[in-house]
């Protein structure tokens, strides 16, 4: 067995906890939803495309985003719901781009389905825009090599995995996930970094994502 490369700087695991802030904005029609999606804070777009993943982490794969869930479940526009649910979030490297894609998807649908604009939800079923306030905290866990890294991955909260895989990439616009970045720059293992970066985390439950990451890393040890 080859000796493990030991990094000069360890990977320091952080965790991210979120608090939901109400914006007071609500939509009862597809038209209102569209207009509000254009103007709500980025933290709200982030919330509605990622909350489901965290709150329903046992559901798998591909949990729908809140927009898709509401458009399908409440307005009964199943085709649009499917299009929204299948937006390939991993392709977008910023909330701005993701927002533009959602807007374009709804606008395109409305062009061919003008009647969809006339549907109203009941008042208790309106879409409420909420935003995620994220708190990032360093944990006491760190790793200098892949063995330690895999061990920590087994112990940390899924919030921590979530933070390093989803939030740092999309919301903090770091281009790649934190794990791949450290494996490449500190351990010089481009192949493994690439393998991790290639995962589409949106198609796993968070627990399955944890297991998959551990499996990929342990294979390299």
């Amino acid at each position, binding site marked *: 067995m080859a000796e493990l490369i030991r990094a000069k700087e360890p990977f320091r695991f952080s965790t991210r906890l979120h608090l939901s802030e109400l914006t007071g904005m609500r939509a009862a029609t597809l038209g209102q939803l569209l207009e509000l999606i254009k103007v709500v804070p980025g933290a709200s777009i982030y919330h509605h495309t990622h909350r489901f993943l965290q*709150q329903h982490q046992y559901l798998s794969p591909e949990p729908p985003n809140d927009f898709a869930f509401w458009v399908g479940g409440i307005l009964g526009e199943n085709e649009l719901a499917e299009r929204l649910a299948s937006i390939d979030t991993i392709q977008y490297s910023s909330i701005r781009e993701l927002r533009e894609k959602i807007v374009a998807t709804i606008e395109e649908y409305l062009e061919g389905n003008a009647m969809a604009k006339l549907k109203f939800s009941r008042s208790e079923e309106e879409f409420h825009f909420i935003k995620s*306030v994220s708190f990032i905290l360093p944990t006491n866990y760190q790793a200098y090599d892949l063995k330690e890294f895999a061990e920590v991955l087994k112990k940390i909260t899924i919030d921590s995995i979530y933070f390093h895989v989803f939030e740092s990439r999309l919301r903090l616009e770091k281009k790649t996930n934190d794990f791949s970045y450290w494996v490449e720059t500190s351990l010089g293992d481009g192949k493994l970094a690439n393998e991790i970066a290639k995962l589409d985390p949106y198609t796993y439950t968070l627990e399955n994502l944890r297991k998959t990451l551990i499996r990929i890393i342990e294979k390299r040890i």
Partner: protein
Amino acid sequence: MIQIDEYTPIVGQSVIDDLKLLAEKLKGRTVQHINSTSVGGGVAEILNRMVPLLRELGVDTKWDLIKGGEQFFEVTKKFHNVLHGRKEEVSQRDFDIFMETSSKNIEEINTYGDIVFVHDPQPIALVKKRGNNKWIWRCHIDVSNPHQKVWDFLKDFIIQYDSAVFSAPGFSQKLPIRQFLISPSIDPLSDKNKDLPQETIDAVLNKYGIVPDKPIITQISRFDRLKDPLGVIEAYRQVKRYIDCQLILAGGAASDDPEGIQVLEEVMARAKGDPDAHILLLPQNDIEVNALQRASTVILQKSLKEGFGLTVAEALWKAKPVVASHVGGIPLQVKHKYSGLLCRSVEGAAFAIKQLLNSPEYSRRLGENGKEHIRNNFLLTRHLRDYMLLFLSLYHPEDVVNL
């Protein structure tokens, strides 16, 4: 007293570790809760559990009460009712009584906390004496369609707080201050939710003459029209035409609530002559409620209006398939076809119950999903975490906070 580490086997070590990390960030700050009663009611129940746990975590937490006479509490009860949409006359005299008592409390209560955490409308006026400290108003009631005059009166105080907290998105109002969404929670170690030995469950069934070998449909709620008990009986009847089953409709009725007693009589009359319909007027007995929920095949919550509906969380925590109305905080707990079934009518409820009784495998999956959903989102540990984040948010206005 329950210690924080006793929750580790239920939620995992890392969740408890996170709570400890957060508590460290609050070192040196005193959090002062203020409400109107230390016993009875949901707010007192949750504070009785939370305050000791926050202290154990190292957050300096105090709990103070306001004082008020009978007249004051009659007025605040009236406020509570009309905020929930009940039709009652609110006069200028009511507002005067409220302000007289509030003025005395403002004089007498020392609001020494770095963070003053005020619960519900009764102590709301204390904010008039705010200094440089931070103030939070926690609204535990459904104010989605409030009485406008009372709401406007309260709003003058609310806007003087730093932040307000609501239990469901639909309860929020247009306000110039920050508003947060924090759901209530259940305590998995309480008598109502802890694991029970099979003998205890069997003994409770035996006591009430319920047989274990016939499907049981249960609704736990007080006898109140808003819980639609007659609708529950109707849904059960529609199911019973096709599937031989039993109904348990169990709950309390406050002795000072004449309407509750009337509702109970109507329910009894409607169920009369059916030996499989068990209408149980339970005194406050959490173990029995727990046992009845655990013995059930399907749990129903067919409310017409709900504050949050924590009985749904209790049922899901026991991995039971649930059929519940799409009202109040219930849709936050039940995602249709993922963690239970939502309904909007008696017929819809009956249809969903039949589906579940005829598909045990589907029911089992919904129940298991539901339990995990509660574990991740509606246990006391999540509530503690949210409150600590809320305290920290008072010092961090940004959307991404590096602690």
